[in-house]
């Protein structure tokens, strides 16, 4: 299957994009601080994804791994994905009760472009962890997850 590289010039079909992202996730494209992949390998709609963010060093998130669920709707990549944390986290822009990431708080989601990808979103969230306003927020004990 031909995966078109230039996203700007051609509107790439959703599945193609997602497959490409799947491949990138498996190949570890990027700096190794975020990881993503299909939640269920049999998911033919490529909708439900899992992400992992490694807490950046020198922040309170250091040494922790945050698991996320990313849902790429049918209009992806024209529409941004839904992102929610599975691992409990105290971060501005993430609902305390259920880990849902507020689209308005993350610039990659708020100003979504179809050239963005799951990786971009995860990396943006990681960058948010390094922000001054976030890097020292007290965190819940490690290993807790949102139950709803």
């Amino acid at each position, binding site marked *: 299957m031909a995966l078109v590289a230039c996203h700007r010039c051609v509107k790439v079909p959703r599945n193609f994009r997602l497959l490409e992202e*799947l491949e990138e996730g*498996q*190949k570890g494209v990027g700096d*190794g601080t975020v990881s993503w*992949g299909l939640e269920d390998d049999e998911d033919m709609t490529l909708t439900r994804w899992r992400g992992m963010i*490694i807490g950046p060093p*020198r922040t309170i998130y*250091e*040494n922790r791994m945050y698991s996320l669920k*990313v849902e790429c709707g049918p209009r992806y990549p024209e529409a941004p994905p839904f992102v929610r944390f599975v691992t409990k986290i105290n971060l501005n822009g993430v609902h305390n009760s259920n880990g849902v990431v507020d689209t308005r708080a993350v610039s990659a989601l708020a100003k979504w472009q179809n050239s963005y990808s799951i990786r971009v979103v995860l990396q943006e969230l990681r960058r948010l962890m390094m922000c001054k306003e976030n890097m020292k927020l007290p965190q819940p004990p490690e290993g807790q997850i949102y139950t709803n």
Partner: protein
Amino acid sequence: MAESSGTDPTVDSNVVENAAKDRTMIVVTVKTPKDKEEIAILEDSSVAQFKEEISKRFNAKLDQLVLIFAGKILKDGDTLNQHGIKDGLTVHLVIKTAPKATSGSTSQNSASSSGTPQANSSSSASSPVPNASTPPGTGPAIQPPNLLSGFGDLSSLSGMGMGSANFMELQQQMQRQLMSNPEMLSQIMDNPLVQNMMSNPDLMRQMIVTNPQMQQLMERNPEISHMLNNPELMRQTMELARNPAMMQEMMRNQDRALSNLESIPGGYNALRRMYTDIQEPMFSAAREQFGNNPFSALGGNLDSGVQPSRTENREPLPNPWGPPGTAPSESRGTGSSTTTSSNGGTAPSVSSLPNPLGINASGLGNGVFSSPGMQSLMQQISENPQLMQNMLSAPYMRSMMQSLAQNPDLASQMQNPEALSVMTNPRAMQALMQIQQGLQTLQTEAPGLMPSLAPGGIPGIPSTTGGSVAPEGPPPPTQGSNPSADVSPSQQQQQLMQQMLQMFAGGVTTTQAVTPEVRFQQQLDQLSAMGFLNREANLQALIATGGDINAAIERLLGSQPS
């Protein structure tokens, strides 16, 4: 030729079996934030087996490894197949540093921080502290070698330290080690454990707080306890300590701010007050430690200039032998420049109190080796190995150490905190050097002039300790060190001075008595010409300021309510 490869029974049966069972080796890339390795493993291995391979390759323990693939954490019981890990794909690896310590310290600290809101809870604080900081698990009164024993990298160093009876040697060795291997120090800093520890403000606070000196200090000076209780500040401090660039930046800012402050009328007094309020209690707290371990102060002194977040210490250094306080103006300049230049020379710390506070809150660093100041110093040292070299190679340091090692008496004398303050006072040391040079010159020029220069001969004249004839240069440079002070506070000091001079001059001591009056004749004249007619007061002021006319005038004006 009906020869089918692979079916020959003599061929390795494993291969046959493998081929039959379709077990193949796959090459998986394992990527950490720092590096990347390719690991060959059987396709149907379990995650646990994979981790075995990884732990060998990355030199990490099994329980430190966390594998992530496609956004999921790989559990030991899973298989690679389960996660769809195939040849050529990349798995992310996170090497957790001592995960038990992390979780342990978190839980411990949450328990302890709730149980120890106040500073005066050493009993409960000390128990979690050793538990929490497992590898560097040392008690509250942490001395450098003890703490170092926690770091695996420096285990050899610590062993050497513990075994050494002579603490001086230890210090030297440590310094030499650090000097020769600045990488080690940066390794320490990079050690995620250290970072982890330091990133945990509660833990840091505990360690600092449990130092008994610190507790006393906090009792006396509530501001300090506020400072410690402010997590923001603590974190900032630790952040600074970890980040040398930030540290230097901060120091420069502080220097600038302070020099601005000085230019404000009355600003100098504010600084002085600030210093005395904070430095003095810290110093006296540190002082109490001297009885225990005088030489630790030596090591701890290294960071005296590097505690900007705690205290401001830019006041002029005192003349320990009597006239306290060299000229504030001139030393202020040098003081700030020295602090800026990464503690060039020895650590400058200053007080304009009669009490020579050569050793300031850096003494505090003794109790808490991992204090941010110390850490930042260590970082600076690691960056700049020259620094350590300078410190050690400074002639006065060297001769000092040698003589100390040889002369246990002198060593006991060194316990005198004022004496130690001399050693840390760079200008004092410089002046001592000048004295030595002067003496040597004199010896060569006029051997008959110094009758009592017999080696080992210490004149027992209390009132006049070794005087500097000061042939070289005008009084101001040497005055800071001028030991022939009639105002010498204690006999002990004088004896120490004599011995030190003896040491410096290679066994040469002097009995030249140059009274302050004679020394300050010129200044006295100037003062009287200006209208300060009280000769006594002038003299006192001059002595106090070591001959600096401006400072003497200030003193005089300050004492006379106008």
